[in-house]
């Protein structure tokens, strides 16, 4: 059996190989997308010759998400994919022109890979899913639906528009925001009560709280509603909230796993639950398609030491998207590789302290 050290070394080699292939693809004259081929002209290095390993990605300037605002969207599509059906997903933002990403099949691949990390006893194959969260222009709805289908189930969906909730809260219309949340929970309750054999769920921490408490108020529980496994994401999924959810909202027979991700990167998985971690949440990116680093606040090219705090930096390296380093709006602690994920992770992800004061989080 390979040691963790061996596994780490093998995965590093795999990452370097992925880096070379993806850079050749995105900067190849016959394969690259218009955006990167144009950008290449501004570089003082040749990505095709000078990028030979993951660390060479530091030669690129930081990826700016403002580049994703506005069209034409096809400038992001590599030439061989131009004739494929194209999806466009918004990555966030509540005002102005949204930041968008084009996708062909990445959302399916990401969630198929994520599916492999889900324990079958808690997310039984063939059982149906409830997707209770923001859909609309986000990729989440299609991704969760694909995950359910990939595992042989059907996905029931309830939408929530977080931008409307933000508007209500900014106007101080708390009662209306509550009524809107209740409207979403009403729909979820109806679906759960309609003999739909739903055993798995994606939702957000706030909506899970609202659903669990509604079920309790009606003399039931998440477990009694038939749900066995939940995955849930966002910086609101804190260590304390994880414990609260396990101990008080769900009980011992409902499995919940945290995820961290966005439309650019895909989905980072939580380290398997270990009571010794005391609910500490550690995420591992889906390497080699994406990488998460924890970097110095002042120098994004410098990793912090294990256990130290820094800014989350993302890389995406798929045939559909190349992101050579993007500073997320989050911070956390760098974590050591795990046997299941033999590369660096990040724990206790929370809003970057400089932005935290002005960011509205957890509205849904």
């Amino acid at each position: 059996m390979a040691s963790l050290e061996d596994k780490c070394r093998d995965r590093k080699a795999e990452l370097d190989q992925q880096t070379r292939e993806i850079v050749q693809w995105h900067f190849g004259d016959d394969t690259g997308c218009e955006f990167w081929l144009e950008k290449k002209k501004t570089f003082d290095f040749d990505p095709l010759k000078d990028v030979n390993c993951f660390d060479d990605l530091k030669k690129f300037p930081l990826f700016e998400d403002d580049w994703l605002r506005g069209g034409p969207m096809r400038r992001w599509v590599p030439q061989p994919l131009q004739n494929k059906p194209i999806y466009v997903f918004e990555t966030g933002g509540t005002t102005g022109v949204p930041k968008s990403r084009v996708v062909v099949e990445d959302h399916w691949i990401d969630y198929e890979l994520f599916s492999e990390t889900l324990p079958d006893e808690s997310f039984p194959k063939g059982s149906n899913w409830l997707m209770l969260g923001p859909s609309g222009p986000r990729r989440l709805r299609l991704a969760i639906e694909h995950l359910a289908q990939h595992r042989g189930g059907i996905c029931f969906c309830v939408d929530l528009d977080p931008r409307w909730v933000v508007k209500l809260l900014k106007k101080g219309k708390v009662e209306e925001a509550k009524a809107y949340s209740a409207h979403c929970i009403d729909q979820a309750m109806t679906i759960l009560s309609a003999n739909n054999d739903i055993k798995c769920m994606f939702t957000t921490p706030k909506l899970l709280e609202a659903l669990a408490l509604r079920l309790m108020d009606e003399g039931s529980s998440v477990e009694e509603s038939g749900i066995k496994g939940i995955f849930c994401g966002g910086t609101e999924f804190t260590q304390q909230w994880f414990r609260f959810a396990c101990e008080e909202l769900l009980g011992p027979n409902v499995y919940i796993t945290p995820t961290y991700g966005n439309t650019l990167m895909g989905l980072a998985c939580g380290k398997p639950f270990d009571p010794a971690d005391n609910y500490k949440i550690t995420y591992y990116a889906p390497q080699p398609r994406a990488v998460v680093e924890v970097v110095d606040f002042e120098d994004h090219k410098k990793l912090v030491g294990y256990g130290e705090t820094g800014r989350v930096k993302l890389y995406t390296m798929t045939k559909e998207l190349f992101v050579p380093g993007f500073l997320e709006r989050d911070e956390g602690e760098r974590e050591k590789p795990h046997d299941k994920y033999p590369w660096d992770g990040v724990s206790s992800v929370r809003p970057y302290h400089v932005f935290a004061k002005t960011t509205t989080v957890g509205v849904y």
Partner: protein
Amino acid sequence: MIEIPVIRWGKPYESLEKADVVHFETGEVMARMHQANGGLVQMDMRKASKAREILKQFSCADLIKKCEKAADLFLNATLPIGNGTQTPEQFCEIQSATTGLPLNMARGNMSKNAFVLKHMGEILDALTRGLPLEILTRGYGMESRGVMVSYQASSPVLGLVLPSNSPGVHTLWLPAIPLQIGLVLKPGSSEPWTPYRMYEAFAAAGVPREAFSLYPGPHDVGNKVLETSQRAMIFGGTATVEKYAGDPRVQAHGPGFSKILIGDDMVDRWEEYLDVLVKSVLINGGRSCVNCSGIWASRHTEAIADAIAKQLGPITATPTTDPNAVLAAFTMAGAAEAMNSQIEEGVKSPAVTEMTAKYRNGDRLIRKERCDYLRPTVLHVSDLTDPMANTEYMFPFVSVVECPQKQMIGKIGTTLVGTAITADEAWISELVDARNIDRLNVGRIPTCSLNWLQPHEGNIIDFLFRTRAFQNSLPPAH
């Protein structure tokens, strides 16, 4: 290190998230406060009715006696605080250290809270207008004059989102316990001291712990306390007050814009009242909603402003341990600077003159490494429509405004405490009718001198109980 747990209906709960409570000047960590989360509050509030049920096992009279005992304990005893204990002096020291409030003011606020608790019987008797308190417990009963009355509790608990900078406001929620209403407290991030000490004092006096929840935490927790309580109080700025205006469940306490109005019959004798004016502006570091922020008179206003400025201008920041310290620190980064900029902008108006500048010998704003101070400021405002005529800041700040007496009531705007220095019966009658004045004082009464037998920003009895019809026999034929 003091560890302060969350309290969930009397049971300590150790959170996995903690926030440091730091010394305002040095940044030294003085305590770690366990942080609740919003869902946890919502989960607990499903059992809020039990808090009232438990308190109803005691009569109001019993609970009043326990309040008297709790007052002594709060003031004099060594009481638990989280994983340790705290003497009264340690309480004042740590409150001063984390809030920037001078030690003498911490002691003053402690005495004020204890006074209210000690005199709870008289206060409730006054606020209920002599109602037998068993009627509140039972929900109905016959008054001594033979009239059936019914009072229904509007909520089993009172929720509170408490401030970090004004320990005196805790007096407002103390009557809840003897009224058999439970307490759900969200302490301020740098002043958990009064709520936790009060909780321990009540418990040591025999009030069941199950009637209390204390949820330190982020804004989400405060929002959840307000959202899930049928009756709640929040303390904040004008924006907070406006946000909850019209919401019968929430009483928002904000700036007071308290004022002294000098009548034409007395204004020529203004010097006799100078001590009242100065005290109203200065006491408690000018932080309270009951501090005077406007003095209105028809004449002599420049002389009045100058006389106050002469006394207040030289006052400067001194260490919190100075027994004569009168200024409190601003610990929120940028707050003092923002206020100072607003004032600097305001005094550019031709109608505004800063009277303190010549007596101050230095800048208004004192910057320190981790906190700031603002030195007393007295403005003379000759145009009553100028924005500086009706402004309030949380330090000794007052505008002396020139205004004909007949226009005053219409122009002063919302006024929490209005002290009228006059003997003019006709004007007093108009002042009594003025609905923009909450507490009306007539005579030489500083705005900050509160008689606790009087209601404050609405009667808490009316807030926590609703009167309604109750009949258990046929009414007289009619």
